[in-house]
């Protein structure tokens, strides 16, 4: 569904945490901002592919809404340790 406008920043923070928890996304202190964004986009793509969403790498509304569903705390990717 379309987003209620003023929540963008909060959403990105939430998405980062989600990807850290469940898709082995590690915030890298890379000096290259674009590299960092690419890394996050890769993880978004991985998550979209897992849930059968359209794989865009973008934090669109459907992707964010899927992230906000109540769920199991085990990661979705194999790197669980």
């Amino acid at each position, binding site marked *: 569904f379309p987003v209620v406008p003023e929540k963008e920043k909060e959403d990105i923070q939430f998405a980062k945490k989600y990807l850290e928890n469940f898709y082995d996304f590690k915030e890298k202190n890379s000096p290259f901002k674009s590299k960092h964004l690419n890394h996050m986009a890769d993880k978004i793509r991985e998550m979209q592919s897992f*849930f*059968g969403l359209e794989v865009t790498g973008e934090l669109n509304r459907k992707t964010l*809404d899927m992230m906000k*569903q*109540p*769920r*199991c*705390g085990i990661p*979705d990717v*194999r790197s669980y340790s």
Partner: protein
Amino acid sequence: TFPQSPRWKKEDVTYRILNYTPDMLQADVEEAIAKAFQLWSSVTPLRFIRLYSGQADIMISFAAGFHGDFYSFDGPGGTLAHAYPPGNGIGGDAHFDEDENWTKFTTYNGYNLFLVAAHELGHSLGLGHSNVFGALMYPIYMARDTRDYKLPQDDIDGIQALYGPPRESSALPTKAFPPQEPTEKTPAEAPTEMSPREEPTETTPSKTPPRPEDCDPHLTFDAITTLRGEILFFKGSYVWRKSPYFSGIEHDTVSLLWPSLAAGFDAAYEIDKKDQVIFFKDNQYWAVSGYTIELGFPKPIQNLGFPTSVRKIDAALHYQNTNKTYFFVGNKYWIFNENTQSMEKGYPRKIAADFRGLGHRVDAALQKNGHFYFFSGSNQYEVDIKKKKLIRVMKSNSWFNC
């Protein structure tokens, strides 16, 4: 599965329930967990034996926030539970977030403990997440009716890849190890009274009719509402979505958007100030915000002030200029004042008396840009509500750019 596909190297696996949630009776917690174990024992050679003291393979507990394993829980919603793959120590253990509202039955304001436990025990036995929508090991909670819940095929395939199919003779978990409190009857015993294990059979979904074509001239609708700028048209389990940002019509199903709502709405309207859409089916109504079903629903429509003789409503629309909602039932209509949360006096009135040209039953209604749109069969009537004038008659699917 998990890296290196860990699994229990034995068929008798023990479990112990360390504590309970105050949300449910202890007996209901025990029953939910025993039923969850039964799902897996019925399709593998595994047997699950409950211990009442000491170290069991699978230690089950309820905890909130930080609980000592560096995977803190996060309060209501979000992460509901987690469990560890087979192994020593914490391996196999299942933790449930006590900040959730745990329920025995599937409700709209809680999480079914049996369903979540069955999922987590899948991890305790070595299964990872599945991306098959509807599988038990799908990572997102999906409320569903669990009365005769059957393990989906994807999960059966997964667990049998680790443990193989059940042995004929040991299909049922039968024993409980000592030590055992003499007075308590253990659930592990309980299943011995079960009838012999049925083969899991694929449930064949009841036949849903195919979605009508967008431009079918005879297309009719059950309910129509706006939602954050979009217009949603409902017919049975199908949803047509018209967005102001995209050309073309998106097709969804009710179960995809709101898995726990039954399809076949009677009416729907949006209160955009509250970011809420209200759905009506038979004598109940739900409030949703986006995908989330608001707590405390469904409620009976009598709460809105309908007489008990009204068992369902045909159509509804909300007019935000007056913050009033119009309900249409048969040849009459009511006006509900959202400010006072009560029906306006002097209603019901005859639809034909106030909406000339509309003498028949309304299937669905929509308010858009100050105009009311009444859908009756395959026709649609556009009314200028200020002038109370019928502007034109169109086909119901004229919104689909046919």
